[in-house]
């Protein structure tokens, strides 16, 4: 592997590490949260709609702009809204299970350590040969100064 290839691999692993560390929720978790939200909106809307139907004069569809989502979910029906959300969330990947995430994180860290050390050795060799080469600004000091 030459220096450019090493750096490309390091960059890819750093990106993977960020994604693994961020622990973004996966499709199922987002779907569960969306379901809870929709159920809440539907229940709130049902009560408001009922109150509007029982009021004098009858005003079931009177709603301010911020109450529109509640009304919309109630009128369309919770299941239909949940299905629409599921459709959108179909683009989101499933989260990696926690044990697998930790294992992969450890693998990424180990590979990063090895590659960054290889990179530093390669830079030192190239400099010794009189070649002009720059270090990455995000190179780890503990490796550079090793």
């Amino acid at each position, binding site marked *: 592997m030459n220096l450019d290839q090493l750096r490309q691999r390091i960059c890819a692993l750093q990106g993977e590490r960020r994604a693994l560390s961020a622990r973004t929720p996966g499709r199922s978790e987002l779907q569960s949260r969306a379901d809870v939200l929709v159920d809440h909106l539907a229940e709130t809307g049902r009560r408001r709609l009922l109150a509007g139907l029982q009021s004098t004069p009858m005003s079931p569809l009177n709603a301010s702009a911020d109450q529109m989502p509640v009304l919309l979910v109630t009128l369309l029906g919770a299941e239909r809204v949940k299905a629409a959300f599921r459709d959108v969330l179909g683009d989101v990947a499933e989260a990696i299970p926690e044990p697998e995430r930790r294992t992969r994180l450890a693998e990424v860290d180990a590979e990063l350590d090895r590659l960054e050390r290889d990179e530093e050795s390669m830079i030192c060799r190239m400099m010794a040969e009189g070649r002009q080469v720059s*270090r990455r*600004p*995000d*190179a780890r*000091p503990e490796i550079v100064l*090793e």
Partner: protein
Amino acid sequence: MNLDKLTNLGDDVRRLEAEYRQVAERARQHRSDVSRLRAEQDTDPDGPASQLLALAPAELGQLPEKDIKAAGLNLRSVQSMLTAHRAAERLEAERLALSKRLQDARILHERCLTYARQKGAL
């Protein structure tokens, strides 16, 4: 901890700073040459020569020599101006690349200094 490397990183920053200053100065000199050569052309402000000199250097460089001469411009002077302009552009690109390298070198040096201090090596 290898403190020699820390010294080398500092040296790199200083070397790049010197190189940057040199390239910036050379680019400035070439730009100044372009302005001087342009000003030296004795042209009527409303004449065709002024119109040609108002063109972007890339466009001026595309004109046939006979058009430049016909407009009353000194061909050799125009060629010198275009050469100086190209040199200024090349040096400007070099200056920008150096600026990025210098910034990266400063960042890494600073991070390594902080690390060495935190570890009590300085």
